[in-house]
């Protein structure tokens, strides 16, 4: 069955690039601009994986993670963070909120797919 992934990222170019890479690899992809947008879309789009940025207007990645972990439907969903080297503390916070893994920006499409496969199987 095709796995479904939602990309949550405020940068349109990055979001599209991730979506493109994932759909090319055979995943079904939805896009969200921020945490709130993601939560809204996730009620319709039953995702198997969330890839989210840390800093976003409205709802950031950590807040999104906390609310997903509190949601019975998404309690165990893998959540991957997009981070940069300078956000080590944020990474820790994300882990505590229930993040599954992370990808350090900048990354190449192959690296993204590698991490996705690691947590999705």
């Amino acid at each position, binding site marked *: 069955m095709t796995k479904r992934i939602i990309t949550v990222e405020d940068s349109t*170019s990055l979001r*599209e*690039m991730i979506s493109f890479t994932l759909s090319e690899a055979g995943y079904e992809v939805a896009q969200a601009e921020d945490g709130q947008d993601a939560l809204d879309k996730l009620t319709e789009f039953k995702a198997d994986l969330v890839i989210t940025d840390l800093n976003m207007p409205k709802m950031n990645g950590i807040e999104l993670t906390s609310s997903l972990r509190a949601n019975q439907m998404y309690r165990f969903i893998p959540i991957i963070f997009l981070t*940069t080297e*300078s956000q080590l503390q944020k990474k820790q916070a994300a*882990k505590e909120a229930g993040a599954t*893994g992370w990808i350090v*920006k*900048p990354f190449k499409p192959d690296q993204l797919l590698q991490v996705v496969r690691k947590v999705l*199987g």
Partner: protein
Amino acid sequence: MEDRHVKAFKEESYDILAELESLLLELEENPKDATLIDRVFGAMHTIKGSGAMFGFDAISDFTHEIETVLDMVRDGILPVTSGLVRLTLSARDKILEMLDSGTQSLDKEARAIVAGFRDLIGNDESEIKEESEEPEPVETTLRITYRILFKPNTDIFTTGTNPLLLLSELKAMGECTIVARTNEIPPLAEYNPEACYVSWEIILTTNCDENAIRDVFIFVEDNCELSIEKIFEHDSGAESEDYKRLGEILLDRGAVTPEALNNVLNKHKFLGERLLESKVISREKIDAALKEQEHVRKVLQKDRDMQVSSLRVDAAKLDSLVDLVGELVTVQARLSQKASGDNDPELQLIAESVERLTEELRDNTMSIRMVPIGTLFSRFRRLVHDLAGELGKEVQIVTDGAATELDKTVIDQLNEPLVHIIRNAIDHGIEQPAERSSFGKPVKGTIHLAAEHAGASVVISISDDGAGLAPEILKAKAVEKGLIAADQELSEDECYSLILRPGFTTSTEVTDVSGRGVGMDVVKRSIDSLRGTIGITSSKGIGTTISLRLPLTLAIIDGLLVSVGQDLFVIPLAVIDECVELSKEESIQSRERSMMTFRGQVHPYVSLRHVLGIGGVAPAIEKVVLVNALGKRTGFSVDKVIGQHQTVIKTLSKVLGNVEGISGATILGDGTVALILDVNQLVKAERSDIQYKAQGAMPRRVEMTA
């Protein structure tokens, strides 16, 4: 990278940079506004991250420097000054410029800006920081077995982690045995379905290093207990290593104390059962340790199998393959015969193709049975070393052509003859060190073992640089032993071959090593039975070389097809010297005397018709095949010489296997069976019949009839 993505990134960056400009100007007015600082930082951060992703590495590097400073501003370490704002503005302009030009390097101006930012934080690092590449997992050539204990925290599922995926990642890294530990699963009443109670023990044999294994667990490091222990290094060179015993593994793991182990060891049962009975350890722990043992042993076995990078095949299967190929060769011969008789070009064409393919198939099949002789050579190093030591001599062994291949059956039967020859060479050939140096020879003697292909045979030569053979001494010895007549003329070569006679020894003393006079004739017999020949060359004071010429294979031989009456026989081509015709007169004379004269020389003569008890009358002109048997030329009379025949040897059944003079049978193209003659046996049988003493001497029977 898709162009449209780069384009999208650029457009987005223009927007961000435009926003950044106004943000910075606003910030100059309100330097304490934290939200503004955050937004400036965020803008730079986005450009940095996206820049690298879309191939704008220079922008990313450049922005990184600015971001570092802005981060400190955000944390309140640095104040917002008009200088900082001005510098950031010029940086913003620079980014815009770099975005348009798509440059991959920082120009002078950009470097100046970076230097300006560095000054602000007092960082005098001269080189711009390079984004460090993610280190590739190191693949070592060494294979290592690790014991990995992975115990995820019970809440691991709430981080979206599936531990089974991690295990399958490990499985992909190499040889893997996974044991699940389930002893912590609570009774159903206390069971939380959202918790993970299972832990795993993984025994992994891999080329990857420990870091690569840690990388698998990178996301769960903080959410689990993980221990990775190197338990075994696989040295590819080692041959007979074995893995630890169960007790050692348990001690190693700290699962049992040495005292408890010793207590239990005094009883006699499998250690695991004894430990269980004594209740010092749980079954689970023993099972895990046993799994480890099994895993490493399995890997070691595989290593051993891999070392020759070959496939083990049951010898019987190979034999039956050779048999089948033999049958095919036979049928093919029949087809060729039929085709050449019929005037059908198409059939001839097919027959030729079948012939070519059959030949290739035959050669391939035979090559499967071929083994490099090096395996045999290497056994003699120890022998030479030990013998030299025993005799107080210094001897080294040098080998050549160890890669030369020979039929496995031949190799197996070569061991004993070679041992004899090497023993003789060291004992009789190579002199004592003192003697050698007095001759100006190197103190250390050399035994040279060499093998090379020569047509359809392999020549193995064993040379020593010892004293050499003295023909006159050999002859005197032979006379003394009654092996030859005192007045018999012998060529040098004939003298040398005297050492192959039964009961011949030149050594005055019998040593432990050789000198019982049984060595060389045994060698001769073994080589004969392999349808090989022995050649000896020697020069006094320089050394002796014994060459063994052996057929490549025992399964198919080249033979000469002959007939006597209605029966067909094959004589191995290797022993045949020539074929001659005898007139009726000559024949009668020869038969009477059991001797024949050929080119002025007298040779023993054997009538196959007589020996094999075939009735009928010999034709007027008899054909004689001169063969080299038991070191002498002997004539075998036959009715007809039909021609050369590639012979697939079929062994005879148990009932017929011991018939003297017949070594096997073969099936001809038309389906007729021909027997393969063992000329050595035939000659021997004849000789014991005639009881002659030496070549050239008149046989007694002839004496009586004369």
